[in-house]
């Protein structure tokens, strides 16, 4: 697996815990949605905990655990399945402020989509990272200087910039 943050390939200090593994006593782990209840009950409150969720997850079901979750990873079953982008928006809207990760076979050309919808990081399989290297991810992230949509991303939209220019 390779992890991309802000166009850079970075170290991944989170570990995916397989469903058959015991909960470890140390380290940052990402559990599946079905083991979330068990992990929340068993782990001390200061242990970093992440969860990987299906893109069909109801954000309201996760919201009660936001304060305890340092990371939510949204699984993309295919790069062409855009449900994860809406889920990211909804998780941010519901108040999740931790690391939001897109995981799956996303391609470099989707970096802007992911960032604008609220994802911090993208986790892709190694074979894909070998074909689409860091330079491609960085270039894709910088492909556009501005976007039209309001309320997406952290930079102001083209519409806001126009307003500021005329006022």
């Amino acid at each position, binding site marked *: 697996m390779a992890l991309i943050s802000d166009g850079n390939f970075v170290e991944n200090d989170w570990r995916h815990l397989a469903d058959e593994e015991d909960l470890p006593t140390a380290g940052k782990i990402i559990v599946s949605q079905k083991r979330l209840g068990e992990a929340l009950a068993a782990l001390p409150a200061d242990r970093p905990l992440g969860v990987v969720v299906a893109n*069909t997850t109801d954000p309201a079901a996760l919201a009660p655990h936001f304060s305890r979750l340092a990371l939510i990873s949204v699984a993309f079953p295919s*790069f*062409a*399945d*855009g*449900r994860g*982008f*809406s*889920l990211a*928006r909804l998780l941010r*809207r519901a108040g999740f402020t931790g690391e939001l990760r897109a995981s799956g076979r996303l*391609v470099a*050309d*989707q970096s*802007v*989509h992911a*960032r*604008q*919808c609220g994802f911090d990081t993208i986790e892709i399989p190694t074979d894909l990272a070998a*074909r*689409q*290297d860091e330079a*491609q991810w960085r*270039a*894709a992230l910088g*492909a*556009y*200087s*501005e*976007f*039209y*949509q*309001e*309320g*997406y*991303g952290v930079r102001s*939209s*083209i*519409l*806001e*910039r*126009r*307003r500021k220019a*005329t006022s």
Partner: protein
Amino acid sequence: MTAHDPQQAARSNAPTTTYLYDAYDTAFVRERVAEFRAQVARRLEGAMTEDEFRPFRLMNGLYLQLHAYMLRVAIPYGTLTARQMRRLADIADKWDKGYGHFTTRQNLQYNWPRLVDVPDILEALADVEMHAIQTSGNCIRNVTADHFAGVAIDELEDPRPTAEFLRQWSSLHAEFSFLPRKFKIAVTGATHDRAAIKAHDIGLRIHRDDKGEPGYEVIVGGGLGRSPFIGKTLREFLPREDLLAYLEAILRVYNRFGRRDNKYKARIKILVHETGIEAIRAQVEAEFGAMDRAPFKHDGVEFARIAGFFAPPPYESLPEESPALEEAKRANAAFNAFAEVNVLAHKTPGYAIVTVSLKPIGGVPGDATSAQMRVLADLSEKFGFGELRVSHEQNIILPHVKKDDLFALWRALDAAGLATANAGLLTDIISCPGLDYCALATARSIPIAQAISRRFADFERQRLIGKLGIKISGCINACGHHHIGAIGILGLEKKGQESYQITLGGDPSLAASIGELLGPGVSADQVPDVIEHLVDFYLAERRGEERFIDTWRRLGHARFKDVLRREGEDGADI
């Protein structure tokens, strides 16, 4: 006359009739071209697989067709300047085979571009403020509008500012670029629907509330294809300031809950059909209520900025009647026919709307050569403020021609083979490219259109028959809109043979209806006979001013089915 050329119009005080890019729009389109150039290079180097490349080439309008790539260029809300039309001609000459095909969704298709040339073609389009963005793919497609926008006498409000507002909002939308399926939006601001809004994923009808404030009837879930549906009203009146927020709510519901297990059931029409309009309305309204609407609170300012571009051109103050026109009509029968059929009333006294038919007898519906495109560009400058429109009937419109100039315009069109007087008549056939070009097609469409056109070549007979829409699709995907043709023709393949199903009673207007099947399919060479029998029956039965569809509605489908049964007994195998 060139005041409407974008370069000219950028001068202060020069009026414009269409939207002009600002520095942000220009940068965006240029960056898009650069991005696609890099994507093509990465595809050729192997950094992107074909599967990975595919959605990105589609979202730049590039299909892989039966024989070659096909590039679909957006003509947003069907509006073109003379300069843009010339550029389309130049591209056809330089990178294609000297012609282009105008489609039913206000796009232009080039059928023979090479992949490596496409970035240069997109660059050439960007030079004249055009693009091919989102003319394909599972995203929000080119937004279409009434082709008589701004000039129709039945218009309440020009739909183009709304369409341009949506064009910008939908361009590279981060959340809605990987939808379950394509998503088409059409806008009308007139009493008569010329944009087929009930056959779109979202149809917007501009109207006013009881306080006189402009807003939209929002219609959702219409569409053709293999499961045709007439759109249903989601909101009777949506205030303008809520437009983007409300569409975002609809798209979010669709993106999350639209089916992805079967591409043939993935359009929003299926979600609406299976979930029910009431439940969808509840979901959309809940999402609309829950979302943060603060980012949209200045939308009215941006809308007003855009609307400011669509000012009327500097019309002369003219009398409504033109003696010169009346005299020319009396003196020249061919011109008189053209003036009766292809010329429509304009909201400004002394002006007219002219439809230039791209349906010559025996021709390919919607095709135009580069030479014809240049003639149209020149004539638009000479007679029509340098502005052209593309209609979803695959014709070109000159929206503001002085009545006094109509005869001179007609002579020039006639010299270029562009004066076919059949707008709205039987030979004004809508047809998809069919098996001659398309990888999805199951049968040919163009030769069927050509055969019908030749059979009814007599213009006197066409005028006697009156308004009659024939629409032909070469497969179940219905790009030729056969479901909403008064006569629809669907080409299928049965045991290795082309077979054509005929439907009657389709209607693209606000009284929208889906055509009903006439009977078993017929062979390609029988289609003109069947059409002729149906038309003859209509002529024998019609009362007064009834159109074909009116007679069909009055008599009922069974009577028309009987016609074919009787003909079959006479020996014709139909």
